[in-house]
């Protein structure tokens, strides 16, 4: 089922949770609503589910206006961060709940319910746990039960509110991959909310970045990561180094490195700022580039993170660079070593106005 939002707005008292949201979710898509806490992502999800009514705008399901449909008529499966399993029911009873509450004429016979629940428990790899109670399961297992329960009623849309937020990182990683596979097998439309950019990039086909109740950017993960349209998105998706852009004469510089003619900069009121990701910093011999000193080295599995204090920069704001483990094994940068920096890519944003970003890359 395709979902479309048209001009959705919702206020809580004085606080505008979402403002004028337009969004199209095609059938079979797996979309992440990504943003910091308070950005309105959960409110938006709850509006789609029918758990909140928007103050303005329309929710369209397959082109039909579903804004005022009650949740039980929407055929959505909703999964909460804290699972919301019925604690007085066994795993089997939890999963069969949606089938058992159907009106008598629509309710499948008991044997059919049993088969369906068993096959769902198999799908979530919990066939052994039918008689257990939620309190006897781990967090990851509970969330899989919640997913099976939501899938039992054959929803057209699966909505997940921070589904892995309460799990430890190992289990999170496993469940993300599992959700992705499940989605590819079953072809329902899924929307999930997360504040974890990595989760959004790993799982989703499309990422919707929200900030203060508005959509900042919308696109496939690589596009949103590589071509952010605002400093907010750039900062939110991954690590960044921030450097002020200096204008000398008619040229613009980052430290001693010339990046563009001054006329190419936006005319923001507060000057310009360049954002550079750690892997976009090139570390070379001290004789070339921006002179800098290595102040810290940290090996993190396959990558190595270096903190670099560039000449003329405040000492308490070192730049962060990442290089591969292989390169580090070859060159052995050490604390105190003098190096020269270059930037492979950068992106310039005006700090005051809302003018467009200026992208640059070293030739």
């Amino acid at each position: 089922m395709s979902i479309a939002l048209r001009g959705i707005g919702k206020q809580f008292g004085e606080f505008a949770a979402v403002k004028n949201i337009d969004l199209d979710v095609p059938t079979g898509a797996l979309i992440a609503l990504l943003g910091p806490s308070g950005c309105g992502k959960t409110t938006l999800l709850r509006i789609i589910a029918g758990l909140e009514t928007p103050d303005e705008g329309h929710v369209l399901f397959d082109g039909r206006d579903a804004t005022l449909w009650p949740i039980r008529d929407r055929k959505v499966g909703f999964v909460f961060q804290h699972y919301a399993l019925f604690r007085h029911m066994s795993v089997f009873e939890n999963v069969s709940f949606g089938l058992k509450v159907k009106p008598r004429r629509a309710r499948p016979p008991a044997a059919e319910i049993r088969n369906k629940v068993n096959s769902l428990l198999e799908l979530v790899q919990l066939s052994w746990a039918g008689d257990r109670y939620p309190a006897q399961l781990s967090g990851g297992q509970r969330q899989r039960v919640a997913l099976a329960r939501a899938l039992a009623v054959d929803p057209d849309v699966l909505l997940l509110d921070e589904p892995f937020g309460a799990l430890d990182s190992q289990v999170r990683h496993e469940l993300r991959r599992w959700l992705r596979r499940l989605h590819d097998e079953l072809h329902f439309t899924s929307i999930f909310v997360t504040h974890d950019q990595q989760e959004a990039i790993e799982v989703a086909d499309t990422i919707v970045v929200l900030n203060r109740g508005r959509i900042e950017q919308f696109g496939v993960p690589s596009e949103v990561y590589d071509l952010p349209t605002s400093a907010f998105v750039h900062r939110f998706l991954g690590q960044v180094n921030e450097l002020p852009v200096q204008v000398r004469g008619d040229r613009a510089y980052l430290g001693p490195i010339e990046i563009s003619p001054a006329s190419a900069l936006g005319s923001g009121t507060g000057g310009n700022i360049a954002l550079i990701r750690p892997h976009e910093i090139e570390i070379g011999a001290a004789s070339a580039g921006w002179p800098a000193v290595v102040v810290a080295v940290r090996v993190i599995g396959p990558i190595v993170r270096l903190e670099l204090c560039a000449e003329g920069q405040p000492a308490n704001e070192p730049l962060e660079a990442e290089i591969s483990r292989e390169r580090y094994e070859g060159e052995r940068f050490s604390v105190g070593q003098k190096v020269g920096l270059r930037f492979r890519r950068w992106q310039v944003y005006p700090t005051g106005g809302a003018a467009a970003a200026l992208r640059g890359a070293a030739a």
Partner: protein
Amino acid sequence: MAAAEARAPRPLPALGRPILIAVALLFLGLFLVLPLLAVFVQALAKGVTAYAAAIMDPTAWAAVKLTLLVAAIAVPFNLVFGVAAAWAIAKFEFRGKSTLITLIDLPFAVSPVIAGLIFILLFGSHGWFGGYLQIHHIRVVFAVPGIVLATIFVTFPFIARELIPVMQAQGKDDEETALSLGATGWQTFWRVTLPNIRWGLMYGVLLCNARAMGEFGAVSVVSGHIRGLTNTMPLHVEILYNEYNYTAAFAVASLLALLALLTLAGKSFLEWRQPDLRHAARQARDRTRREIT
């Protein structure tokens, strides 16, 4: 001051614990066990036959029946009210919510005698609705309806107060999940909400019932003390006592005490069945207080 509080409590000297326990037991013995024993001793002072005769007395029997009737009306009424109020407060946001929470506590704050007087003022022959009721020959005050009303008023916080923290602690995720799975509101209530609150609800009912049967002040004002007609057990005990009929007074009192003991036993049973219930409720209640203040 802050430093003193932060320091770990010093372990009690070896004698401290037995002394504290002895003091607590002595206190309980003096103020609880002894009076309770006295009730039964007095009741049985003239033998089992006299005890049985006192209880089988028609007016005593009428008082027992009236008390049970009043409780049987007031408790279900407050059950419905308590669940509805707790549901509204715990699961919805609306204007005047904190006022409602405060109002629910009103009967705790108001003296029961005043609670009784309120109903005299409203339904007495010179009260606001007195004229209307007289014309239509409806008796409220000095009759069973007045006693029921006064009892409901005095006992209505018990169930709501017990449920609000439990329901607040549970949030509304479970209900929303049930709805998204296609359940109707009614199905959601019976299959999800009610099982989640059952222990708190039973506990509230027990407390409410104990108070409904034992209430004296408010009922005394509206009852009119008509023997065999509008006397509940506590009122009957008082009348017998004032007539120097000690054996009968204590016999009926022993029945009341027995009902109270049964209630306590029920409460202990619930706590034993659900050890984390009190804990969860207390936590949620503290949280509510912080939010309100």
